[in-house]
């Protein structure tokens, strides 16, 4: 019994330590963010941010677009198979449009970015730790949070919402294609229905979620890298852990945001 309690206690302390480390790292990053901004910050840090934006955003475009198109088709087909029994096939448009702007667009993007960039952050920083590059930065009087993390965080904050918008568009486009092939609904008419179904608050909700997801992915990925201890095998473990933890936390955060919006925003 004592061992069980001891294990529960140890795990609880470990989790609290992790959450505490995430918070400390987030505040340190926010303090260091100024240096990564254009015009007011450090020129080299801004250039690093732009490079990261290309890696996180532009390089992920084909994958995110394809995922969104497939999901758009799936959502439209699954919705249509049920709704057409009630003669309500036109509700597929609303289902796809609202479903993507509020939920699927940001969530799919976050999962894709978590898999691509979250793991890459953990691996890159973990390798820098193992090869003494982080120590090297410190002895050069450069802060790793400012030098490594701030540009990645800024890039994620810009790229993930942009990718979410692209994902929304691709998902809705796939819904339009489905409607065209199944009901011969004119594309222009489809997009007019889509615009009628979506409200500004749906888009804002999706973007707020995207910013939160970007924060989770960048912070968890980088923290896993900074926590690497030992050799290359521990880099591999931290990379896996980075993806698993950030995906898990993204879904938890999504549930919390959705609940908050559901209970606070009046239709």
């Amino acid at each position: 019994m004592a061992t069980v309690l001891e294990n529960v206690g140890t795990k609880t302390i470990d989790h609290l330590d992790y959450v505490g480390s995430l918070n400390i790292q987030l505040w340190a990053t926010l303090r260091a963010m100024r240096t990564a901004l254009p015009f007011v910050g450090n020129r080299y840090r801004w250039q690093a941010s732009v490079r990261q934006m290309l890696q996180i955003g532009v390089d992920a475009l084909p994958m995110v677009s394809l995922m969104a198109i497939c999901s758009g088709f799936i959502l439209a087909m699954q919705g249509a198979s049920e709704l057409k029994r009630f003669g309500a096939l036109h509700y597929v448009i609303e289902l796809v449009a609202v479903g993507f702007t509020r939920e699927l667009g940001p969530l799919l993007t976050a999962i894709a970015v978590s898999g691509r960039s979250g793991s890459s952050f953990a691996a890159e920083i973990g390798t820098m730790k193992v090869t003494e590059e982080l120590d090297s930065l410190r002895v050069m009087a450069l802060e790793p949070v400012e030098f490594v993390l701030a540009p990645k965080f800024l890039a994620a904050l810009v790229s993930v919402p942009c990718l979410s918008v692209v994902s929304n568009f691709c998902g809705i486009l796939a819904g339009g294609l489905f409607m065209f092939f199944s009901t011969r609904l004119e594309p222009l008419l489809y997009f007019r229905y889509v615009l009628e179904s979506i409200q500004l608050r749906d888009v804002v909700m999706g973007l707020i979620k995207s910013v939160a997801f970007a924060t989770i992915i960048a912070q968890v990925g980088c923290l896993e890298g900074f926590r690497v201890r030992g050799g290359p095998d521990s880099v591999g473990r931290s990379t896996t852990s980075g993806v698993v933890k950030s995906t898990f936390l993204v879904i938890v955060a999504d549930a919390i945001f959705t609940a908050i919006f559901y209970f606070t925003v009046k239709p």
Partner: protein
Amino acid sequence: MPIISIRDLVVEYDGRRILDGLNLDIEHGETMVLLGGSGSGKSTLLRQILALEQPKSGSVSVKGIDITRCSKSELKRVRRSIGVAFQSAALFNSLSVEDNIALTLREHTKLAPSIIELMVWMKLAVVGLADFGKLQPQELSGGMKKRAAVARALALGPEILVLDEPSAGLDPIVAAELDELIVLLKEAFQMTVIVVTHELPSAFRIADRIAMLYKGRFSSVGTKDEIRASQNPRVRQFLDRIPGDMATPAVAAYFEKYLKTQEAYA
């Protein structure tokens, strides 16, 4: 006043004592070699001198500032006067060799890019890599990486140059070249040089004084001649390459057991 002063330094990892009450003064302009076997605590001592870790107790003062207790801004100021070349070279793989060297100049000075470019070329020329600035670190050989790391350490014109195992993993010729480079740099720039190594030829070529570490304590500190003449059993064991009394019985027991197993199968 010594440029580096270590007083009663104690370092523990998970309750295991690594450094046990060390005291050492390093004077301006001298080359101090921290010599010792694997696990003797020399790299841990180096990390304390660079303030990369906090000690359990004791102090490390660099240029009169206790870096175990000073503010972040003071620590940054101290660090700008120290150039470090790590054992693994620790060059940033995402940057070219010249960008690695230009990094601190760009971050800590307001020099024009053309001046920085010139300074980078000069630092590379000093270590004999003037034609290799455009390469990526992974395109360099082991010895070239170490020299590039020294060039980066020299970028801000440091008062103290710290080299962690500079000749580890290099062939004897390249290692000897690197030793000559360290001697030349010290003479040319009048720096204080701290070198961590377990290579005896290197240590005796570059050192003014040698501090010999054994199980977290200094077993002997003195000039090269004093260390050579030392009758301290630990120093003699290290210099005369006498095997320790721990490994041999364990290895013998293993082989005895192995042979018995083989006989049993036969």
